Every structure is written in C-alpha cells, then in structure tokens.
C-alpha cells in the first residue's frame, strides 16, 4: 500500500512536469512546475514516512491526501477538458487540506468540535461551492460541468469562496496561537518551530486568496512565496522526525552515564536529558505499600490524564517498576521512550529498591515515634494515678493516725504502735515516690526543664555548672527527652568518668534545642556498650534529632544532642 502510494507520488511528480511542459496556457512553466512539485511531493513523501513510522496516527494519511490534492489541482494546466474539469474541481481543496493537516498535528485528529466545524466548513466551501460555481458556468469553455452560462455569478461564488477560506485560515492561526500559549513555556523546542511554520503557511494562504479577490498587484509573486512556505511545513515536520532519530544518540549517552552507576537521585536527571524533557518526573511503584513514591520513598500521586501531562508505565520482567510523568509531546517519539526505558532498566530497579528502603525506614521511624509516645503517655498516666490515688490516700491515712495519736493522752504502748504504723506509711510513700519519679518526671511537665534541671545539677555526683538559656516552655516530649538526657549523662559521669566537675548547657540555636553535657574525666566512653547511651540516642532520634558523643581517652567526655524545635 505504502509502496503503491509512493509510486503514485512519483507518477504525480512526473505528470506535474509533463503537464507544465505541454501546457499551452501556463506562463513560465519551469517555475510553476517546480513550485507545484515543491508544494506537493514533500507532503506525499513526508506523509508516507509519517504513516510508516506511526501507523496508528492519522497524520500520515492526511498529509498524503493533502499532497495528492495539490497534485490534482495542477490538472487545471491540462488542455484536455476532462482533466481540466477535475483539476478545477480540486483547485481550492489543497488550502483547506493544509488547514486540516496543521490543526490535526500531531495526532491526526481534530480534538475540539470547534476545529471540526472549521475544517468541515472549509471543505464545503472549497469543494461544494466550487461545484456550484462550475455548474453556473465559470472557468471558461473547458469546464465540462457548465450548465448555465452565468459566468458573472460564478465569479461572485469564487470570490465568496476565497474570502471564506482566508477567514478560516486566519481563525486557524488563532487556534494554533492559543494552543501554543496554553502549552505554557515550550517544553520541547522542535514542536514550537513546527507550529510557527504551520501558522505562517496559513497566513500566506489567506493573504494570497485575499489578494486574488482584491485583484492586488503582485498575485503571481505572492503565489510563489505561499507555495514555497507551505512546502516548508512538511520539511519542518521531517526535521522533527529526523531529530527524533538523532535523539537516539542521547540514549547512547544515557548508557554511558548509567554505566558509571549514578546515585538513585541522579537517575531522573539523566532520563530527563536523554528524553530532552526537563519537566520529567519519575515515580517508583512500591507494591508493598501499594503506592507510587519519589526516590526518597515519599508517596506521590500520578497526574490525571488531562492532556497537560502524560504518563508512561514501565514494566520489567512482568512486574511494574515505575512510571514516567512527562510532556505529552513525547508520545510522538515512542521509540525514544522505549529505548530510554530499556536502557535505564537496571538503574530503575535500583532506584525502586532505594525508594522502597527509604519508605520502610520512614515507616520504621514513624512506628518508633509512636511506640515511644505511647509509652510516655502510659507512664504519665500511671504517675498521675499514683499521685492522685495511693499517695494522697496514704498521706491522709498518716494524718488520720496522727490526729488519733493526739487524742491518746496516756497509753504509751498504743502511741508507740501508731508511731510505727506512721513510719511504715512514710516508707511506703518514699518508695511510691521513687516509682512515680521513675515513671515520669512530673516536675518537668509541670514546671519546665529549667526548674527540673536545678535539682539534677545539685544532686549530681560532681559539681555541675548549669547554663540553661531557654525562655519559656518547649514541647513536652522535647523537655522530657532533654531531662532524661541530662539525668542519664550525669549518672554516667558518676559511674565511669572519674571527673571532678561537669557542665550542662541547654540552649536554642537556629530552631534546634541543643543539650550539651561535658565532663573533665577520663573519657573513653563506649557509645555501643550499655543500653543507657543507646536508649538516649533512640529518644533523640525519635524526635528527628542527633546525638553525638566525643570521648577521647584522657580527654573528658562531651555529649551533644541537637533536636529540631520549631516553636
């Protein structure tokens, strides 16, 4: 089929030359023949090429049709009546076909009803009215369709046709301009060049036809210029196709880049370069989470298919791996997309694993925070229960015993036993207080870090210099974490450091709470051994903070925690 059409195209080219050479009416047959061929053949062969590359698209057939219509219009040069009549009938059709081609780029379909109306009106005017004009007896004696002899009326019809088609072309320019403006900044350069070429062609058709109606002076020169420019459009289109083939070399670059084993974060940039689409985003599919994520494992939504963004899904070995979200224009180059996604295979799988790892880490961190928070809440509740329940009752009981004792004036034995009972209660209270304090540092939640640290510093096993420079209250979990940090550090200093003094500093620095405990002891603290430091690190990390310990042998120990603190 394509071959046959190609041969027909060649034949058309040949017949254009023959017709021009034999024509008795044509001035400058050489120039006319070249121009006609220039306007016709690129459409036929460009269209065939497009047809071959994109069998699914209607664009190729449409271009071929435009080319052949151009050829048919050259039959007007013939002195054979039948051929002349056919040529005359198709004379104005190419202009509308060009309009159709330009508006239907790149899919070959007219997406908007308005555009369809535009093109159908064009066909009716160019072909239907042409037949009317011919029946009325226009276009001279060779017109075999002539029934009436109203040449004047036929002239009116022709002028109407030219004006209408010019208007349609100018409206088409408006459509193209709107389309280009809507697309925002040109994401892909070749496309915008094409659209410019189309618009220019339409303007030239309109100018040519109007000049004809107004019987302007330089009609012949205008015709040449118009034909020349219209012939450019398929060339621009072909250049686009060729540059798409050239783009395959960027796939080669991609191979080289991927061989250097880029970091997962750089993969998107490499793909964007290879596809020449800076707007490209890459989403990995994580089946375990049932969601797409970015390379950091953060969930992302694929855009809805609304024509502004397009999505290409990438599968490997039967499993879905990722999705590319890109400029819809990339769908015009499916080979490029295929080549790039094939080249990126292993790197994409790597990226996906990386994203999955990050997502799992995030999940883990989230659950650690929740576990710590839940534990903290539960301990706080227990402390409150002890405080409001057992402790109050025991104190009230002890008071009751005392009041009873006051009334026992004699009886030393009873007094002794009451006294003993009260001492038992005092011991129980002491124990309960220790338990409650271990559960939750109530003084921290009640009165803040600074008040609570004072007692810690005074009770410490070595003299402590306390520098607290935090105005007001901080979030409770932060205060509690800082309190435990200082408490545990001071206890460690007492157990291991052999220090003579220590400094505790708490301050706010650039949106972070910084807690620092420094001693002048023997150093050499092992951060891995013992659960104390590990537990502290857990607490700090759960709040997105960082705990660092410097402990050179013989050089003291310095522990520094930084916890984000927005308020």
């Amino acid at each position, binding site marked *: 089929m394509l071959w046959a059409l190609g041969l027909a195209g060649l034949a058309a080219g040949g017949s254009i030359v023959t017709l021009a050479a034999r024509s008795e009416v044509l001035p400058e047959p050489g120039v006319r023949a070249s121009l006609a061929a220039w306007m016709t053949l690129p459409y036929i062969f460009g269209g065939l090429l497009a047809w071959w590359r994109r069998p699914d698209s209607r664009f190729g057939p449409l271009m071929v049709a435009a080319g052949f219509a151009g050829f048919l219009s050259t039959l007007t040069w013939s002195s054979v009546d039948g051929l002349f009549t056919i040529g005359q009938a198709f004379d104005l059709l190419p202009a509308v076909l060009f309009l159709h081609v330009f508006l239907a780029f790149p899919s070959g379909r007219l997406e908007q009803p308005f555009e369809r109306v535009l093109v159908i009106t064009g066909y009716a005017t160019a072909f239907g009215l042409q037949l009317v004009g011919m029946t009325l007896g226009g276009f001279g004696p060779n017109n075999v369709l002539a029934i009436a002899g109203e040449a004047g009326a036929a002239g009116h019809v022709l002028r109407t046709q030219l004006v209408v088609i010019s208007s349609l072309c100018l409206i088409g320019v408006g459509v193209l301009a709107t389309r280009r403006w809507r697309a925002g900044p040109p994401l892909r350069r070749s496309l915008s060049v094409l659209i410019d070429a189309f618009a220019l062609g339409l303007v030239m058709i309109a100018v040519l036809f109007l000049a004809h109606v107004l019987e302007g002076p330089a009609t012949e020169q205008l015709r040449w210029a118009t034909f020349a420019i219209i012939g450019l459009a398929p060339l621009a289109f072909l250049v686009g196709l060729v540059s798409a083939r050239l783009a395959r070399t960027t796939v080669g670059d991609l191979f080289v880049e991927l061989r250097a084993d880029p970091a997962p974060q750089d993969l998107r940039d490499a793909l964007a370069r290879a596809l020449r689409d800076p707007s490209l985003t890459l989403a990995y599919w994580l089946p375990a989470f049932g969601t797409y994520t970015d390379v950091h494992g953060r969930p992302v939504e694929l855009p809805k298919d609304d024509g502004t963004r397009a999505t290409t899904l990438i599968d490997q070995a039967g499993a879905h791996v990722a999705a590319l979200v890109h400029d819809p224009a990339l769908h015009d180059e499916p080979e490029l997309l295929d080549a790039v996604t094939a080249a990126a295979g292993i790197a994409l799988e790597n990226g996906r694993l990386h994203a999955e790892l990050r997502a799992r880490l995030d999940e883990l961190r989230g659950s650690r925070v929740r576990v710590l928070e839940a534990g903290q809440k539960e301990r706080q509740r227990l402390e*409150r229960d002890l*405080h*409001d329940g057992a*402790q*109050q*009752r025991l*104190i*009230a009981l*002890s*008071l*009751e*015993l*005392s*009041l009873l*004792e*006051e009334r026992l004036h004699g009886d030393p034995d009873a007094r002794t036993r009451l006294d003993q009972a*009260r001492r038992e*209660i*005092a011991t129980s*209270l002491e124990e309960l*207080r220790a338990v*409650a*304090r271990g559960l939750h540092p*109530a*003084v921290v*939640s*009640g*009165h803040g870090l*600074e*008040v*609570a*640290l*004072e*007692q810690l510093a*005074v*009770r*410490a*096993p*070595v*003299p402590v210099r306390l520098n607290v420079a935090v105005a007001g209250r901080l979030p409770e979990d932060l205060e509690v974490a800082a309190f435990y940090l200082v408490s545990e550090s001071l206890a460690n200093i007492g157990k291991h450091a052999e220090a*003579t*003094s220590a400094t505790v500093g708490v301050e706010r620095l650039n949106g972070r709470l910084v807690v620092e405990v420094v001693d002048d002891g023997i150093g050499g603290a092992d951060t891995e051994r013992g659960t104390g430091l590990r537990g502290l690190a857990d607490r700090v990390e759960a709040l997105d903070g960082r705990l660092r310990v410097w402990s050179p042998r013989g050089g003291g120990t310095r522990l520094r925690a930084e916890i984000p603190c927005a308020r």
Partner: protein
Amino acid sequence: MRAVIAEDSVLLREGLGRLLNENGLKVVGSCETADDLLLKVRSYSPDVAIVDIRLPPTHNDEGLRAALHIRANHPSTGVLVLSQYVELGLAMKLLADSADGAGYLLKDRISDVRDFVDSVRRVANGGSAIDPIIVSTLLSKRRNDDPLAELTPREREVLELMAEGRSNQGIADALVITLRAAEKYVSSIFTKLGLPSSGSDSRRVLAVLLYLRS
C-alpha cells in the same frame, strides 16, 4: 489566726482542716481550684494560705502560679506550698527574692502534727518554712572548695534548722540547748561561711539557701 486551704483531694482537704482547727487555727475557707483560692484570699485576707502545688484543671503549675500571685499581691497573707515532691528549682522560684511569709513542704510533713502546725504558724507570722529535704539536698551538693567542711557536726545541725526557717529559740528547742548557745552557733556559722549576719529569721533563710546553692 486564719487560714484557707486549696487542695483537690477531699480526704486531705478535710484532714488538713480538722488538723488546723484542732490546733488553734481557724480555717475560713477551703477549695480545690486555684481560681477559688485567689477569690477566697481576696475576700478573707487570711494570715496563711495552704496550697497544693498540683491543682486542677491541668495539674501542672496552677498551684505554684496561684502561690506566686498571692505573694506578689497579698503580702500580708503567708503562703505555704505543699507538694508530693520537693524540688530545689521550685523552692527557688517560690522564694525568688524573699523568704518572708513563704513555706514549701513535702506533703508527708502534715502527719507530723506538731512540726507542721509550727511551720504554718511561722509562715502566717511572716517567717518561712523550708522542707528539710531541700536543705539536705543543698548540703549534699559536691563542691570543689568547701567551707562547709570547716563546720562542726553541731554547727551543721544548727545550719540545717536555720535554713528550714526556724528562729534561734526554735533551734534551741529542737536541739535542747539554751538560747544563748544557739545564738553562739549561729554567729560562728556566719563567720565561717563569710556571710554577713542579717536581721530577720526569714532573711537569713534566703541568705543561707543562696549561699548553699551557689
């Protein structure tokens, strides 16, 4: 001598009321929230307000804030704060720049009726009552260069009682020594610690606490 009580545990509130009434104080009001307490202090101008540090609704620092408010705005009303835990930081916050008419005791102390009533009376009279735990915490503080080491055991005992807010007579009674002997110990302590001997009992409480804390 008139007192108001703010305590959210009914058992304790009633017990405290009885205790004070049986020991010659008149409880003119008792309540369970800080707002009620301030209202009663304004209305009755009592000699002393006994305040639980943990009051509704949040049980955080409502009691302490009410206590500080009374100390700032009703100087004639002494404030005795009771708590399940005593913290040096809280004591220093409550006293701020004066120990006049201020007390801070562990809740357990109320069952030692005689001592407790004595503390309430001291605070009502503009003196002070600091829990022994605060004082012993301060005394246990490690120091690199410690003048406290020069004190004799007897002088240490006197220092502790002094820091709790007792008068010379109170110290003499507690240690069963003469008033004269107590005064001698006190002046000897001031000399050894390099503190200027100061006037009232509560003023020397603050001086000693600040010295120990530094």
